[in-house]
């Protein structure tokens, strides 16, 4: 669901290596998921301090949280119904902080740097026949497709609203799938034209 893209800068946060930032992302995910409110507060303070240090403004954070808002509200209401208000609030706060950590990493790390890091991390898998370069690139390509899918979804919903079909899931899902598959074909053709081919 990440929508934040790299925001150029020369802050100390930008200069931290992609490998260290990905390790930080993994460590905070474990700490937030397994820890209680205290761990959450510690991670939130660290992320807020890093965010200020990065000097990238609040836009990447809003870009990442806005599409998640409806899902977070739905999770909160479900948790209130299933558990209680404090439990629901803690879970939603954990998810919001994790989105903020991921947004910070993606806003201060070039995707090409992440790609090279992933290739290095996955390199040992070559021994068992895994093409690390392809796995890393396909991961990045999947991230690249997220805004495209949001765009396709918004265009299809607008078209169906214009036809009075906003309540029909089929009227939204079928054209979305067709357009997403067609765009996938177009990207595959463009990749071939630019010299990227399975090896």
């Amino acid at each position, binding site marked *: 669901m990440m929508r934040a893209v790299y925001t150029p800068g020369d802050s100390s946060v930008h200069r931290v290596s992609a490998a260290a930032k990905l390790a930080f992302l993994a460590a905070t995910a474990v700490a937030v998921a397994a820890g209680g409110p205290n761990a959450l507060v510690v991670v939130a303070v660290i992320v807020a301090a890093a965010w200020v240090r990065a000097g990238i403004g609040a836009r990447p954070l809003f870009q990442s949280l806005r599409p998640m808002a409806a899902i977070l509200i739905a999770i909160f209401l479900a948790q209130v119904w299933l558990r209680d208000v404090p439990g629901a609030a803690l879970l939603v706060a954990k998810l919001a902080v994790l989105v903020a950590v991921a947004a910070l990493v993606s806003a201060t790390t070039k995707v090409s740097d992440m790609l090279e890091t992933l290739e290095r991390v996955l390199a040992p898998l070559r021994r068992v026949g895994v093409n690390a370069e392809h796995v890393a690139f396909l991961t*990045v390509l999947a991230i690249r497709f997220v805004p495209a899918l949001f765009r396709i979804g918004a265009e299809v919903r607008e078209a169906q609203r214009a036809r009075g079909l906003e309540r029909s899931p089929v009227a939204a899902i079928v054209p979305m799938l067709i357009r997403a598959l067609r765009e996938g074909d177009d990207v595959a053709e463009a990749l071939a034209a*630019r*010299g990227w081919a399975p090896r």
Partner: protein
Amino acid sequence: MIALDNVKVRYGVRVALTGVSTTLSERRIAIIGDNGSGKSTFARLLNGLIIPTVGRVSVLGLDTARDGAQVRRRVGFVFQNPESQLVMPTVAEDLAFGLKAHGVPAGERAARVEATLQQLGASALRDRACAELSGGEKQLVALAGALVLAPDILICDEPTAMLDLRRARTFMKVLAGLPQQVIVVTHHVDLLAGFERAILLAEGRVVEDGGAADVIARYVAASA
């Protein structure tokens, strides 16, 4: 030079192109015709994205059926929709992606990206997010993505179809200044000033081939 020898392309039972034999050596060539006439198939034959069902396409001495990867190293391609062509989040990363795919060492990539953006007057776009560019800027970056690989030939499939008239004119002016042989598929026949040759396709066949001004004038008159 590109040579097509008795080329036929069939998709299942549908014949998209048939009986095409020609050589393409002029610096500026336009491929025109109605929707469904076979223009995009023709363009994709020229860099081996489509292999002829019958016949042979030779590009700079290379057979597209046998040497597709080598052909694509020498022939750049710009698509109608730049959204499909831009795969990395920022402009500089996207241009460097193509260089990496072609095995250009990491140390050389930044300089080539910078030089290509400068060539197109687009240095200011270097660190911009591709998703946030305007339509004209995206198409310019798609063109830069093809040119950064230093192709000998450039094929453009309806590159101005998604641009307004002002940006379409700007884009065609950029194409006019390129040193490469440029082959453009387009409906915007009014933007083909300076083109030497035009090929008119209809129902998968070449129906007119000659000086651009004459062929375009006859096509426009027939379409009126």
